């Protein structure tokens, strides 16, 4: 983990409110894993004060570069979009726990800006010889991001838009259902379910729907979550989400957290975990999504 001033190599405006920022940080790029994030300052004054968490969208250890795909939603990201090449980016990272690569087949699902952490994931999965299907969703064609980049990989890419302006009309949840049906017709039996894994990032309602499908079908699922962050390193306990407490299951087998939230910290059947350290990627089995909260 590093904290540095990195040189901005490129700041591309992709749509009205989406940008792709590439910066030079050789050591950080060598350490970075898909699903991890960085914590960036959006200016050099005390206002806005806090850093902003952004996923790593491009990881290129050879070039020593990293890139961020982000949507301008407020003051911080707006300031960030005003930085230009040749300027410095104050950045900490790589932070958090990324995706775990398992199985022989992967279904990678991104909704809206949720595609950001998925591109490096798809690249690594393919390098590992895992067969990948990417399902991208957005409200309409303009909301589709990084589509070409996914198409450049060997993954099979399917697209759904709510209004049918691109790909099929519908949602990625429909696409997932179809994909899982065809998977289980080719690979019948319970055993085969261990060879597949679903990876998802996007708005909470989308994640909840995917979670329900995977839960009832007993399909392994990894979700990348978001929460407001202070420190980004596990110190302030701002960024918590609820995870299940199971006596002998996935989250027991997983490496214990290096420090911090302890097993003692439980209500009866759940405890708080920090998105910045224990996450941002969680197993579907362990996480309790709060679907009732507005985005």
């Amino acid at each position, binding site marked *: 983990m590093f904290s540095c001033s990195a040189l901005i190599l490129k700041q591309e405006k992709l749509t009205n409110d989406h940008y792709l920022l590439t910066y*030079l940080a050789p050591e950080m790029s060598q350490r970075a894993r898909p699903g991890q994030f960085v914590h960036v300052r959006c200016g050099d004054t005390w206002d806005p*004060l806090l850093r902003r968490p952004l996923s790593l969208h491009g990881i290129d250890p050879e070039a020593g570069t990293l890139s961020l795909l982000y949507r301008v939603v407020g003051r911080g990201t707006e300031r960030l979009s005003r930085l230009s090449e040749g300027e410095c980016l104050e950045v900490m990272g790589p932070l958090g726990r990324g995706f775990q690569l398992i199985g022989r087949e992967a279904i990678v699902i991104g909704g809206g800006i949720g595609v950001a952490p998925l591109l490096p994931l798809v690249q690594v999965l393919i390098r590992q010889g895992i067969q990948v299907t990417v399902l991208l969703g957005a409200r309409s064609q303009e909301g589709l991001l990084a589509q070409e980049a996914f198409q450049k990989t060997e993954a099979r890419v399917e697209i759904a838009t709510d209004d049918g302006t691109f790909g099929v009309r519908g949602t990625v949840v429909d696409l997932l259902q179809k994909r899982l049906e065809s998977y289980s017709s080719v690979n019948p039996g319970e055993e085969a379910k261990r060879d597949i894994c679903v990876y998802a990032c996007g708005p909470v309602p989308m994640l909840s729907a995917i979670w329900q499908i995977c839960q009832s079908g007993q399909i392994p699922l990894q979700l990348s979550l978001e929460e407001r962050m202070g420190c980004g390193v596990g110190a302030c306990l701002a960024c918590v989400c609820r995870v299940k407490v199971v006596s002998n299951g996935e989250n027991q087998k997983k490496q214990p957290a290096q420090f911090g939230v302890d097993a003692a910290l439980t209500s009866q059947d759940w405890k708080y975990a920090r998105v910045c350290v224990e996450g941002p990627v969680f197993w579907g089995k362990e996480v309790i999504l709060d679907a009732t909260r507005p985005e």
Partner: protein
Amino acid sequence: MRPGLNNLVEYTKAARFEKAGDKERLGAQSISEAERVNLAVTIGGIRMANPVTTGSGTFGFGPEYAPYVDLKRLGAITVKGTTLEPRLGNPVPRIVETPAGMLNAIGLQNPGVEAFVQDHLPYLREIGTPVIVNIAGNTVEEYAAVAGRLSEVGGVAGLEVNISCPNVKQGGIQFGTDPVMAAEVIGAVRASTQLPVIAKLSPNVTDIVAMAEGVAQAGADALSLINTLLGMAIDVQTRKPVLANIMGGLSGPAIKPVAVRMVWQVAQAVDLPIIGMGGIATPEDALEFILAGATGVAVGTANFVNPRATVEVIEGITTYCVKNGIKDINHLIGWAWKR
């Protein structure tokens, strides 16, 4: 790419733009001068190599920041508030950014004193930097029990008593806003420990001096001020409070003038060493508190913005002393009103 940028890229690669270690800002000659500046201070019996500690709750239990700062260099490490039993804390959102500051309502999430002693204290003992444990409770008895337990384990240099907690036996009024209850808590902690007792005052009172005098009489060895200012924020889109807890504590640069004022007032009225905090982000901020009368300073929210803020404050104070011919940091304490 812009012309010239290529050169910069090469330069960056060669010069390892990423600073892994510490950068010495002083020239060779000044380094030896810097070594001659005395930064050591004593706060209620806690001997610190320099005045800088961490704001409780902003620095975890220490290891979280170890990749960014050498924890041995800190004057002390003040860890997250610890209670007798584990606490889950509040639902999210727990924080919201405000102009030059933030509100937090973490709800004292912590693993409880036993888990602290088992899982976190061993790591802290290894570092060798004095460890100040911040303690909290719902009743006077809980405070006393936590204090008692921490006194017998070894490796704790002092207790910082967070009195900004609701007293469940008194209808939830904060201990820290009532001089009688505040004195009662400090008295009970005092009676159950030999460790230095630092009373951490709440700024949410009209007369901070009266609070300070009350806890001094009850046996506090030192004072920490200030804790966060009670505030809230409303989201105009949802038309609802942002924090799940509705209200939260304001911290960060926005509160610094309030904190400096309180240190100034208390330092003149009460003869106890003070750890000043509230918005410290730079060496100049820290010096302001020292000049107002603080013996030590804590860096809190600024750690989130700059994970190296603590060591940069230490380095900057050293540079200031060298440049201004100050041989001992203790000479600067309260300078603004003493001289």
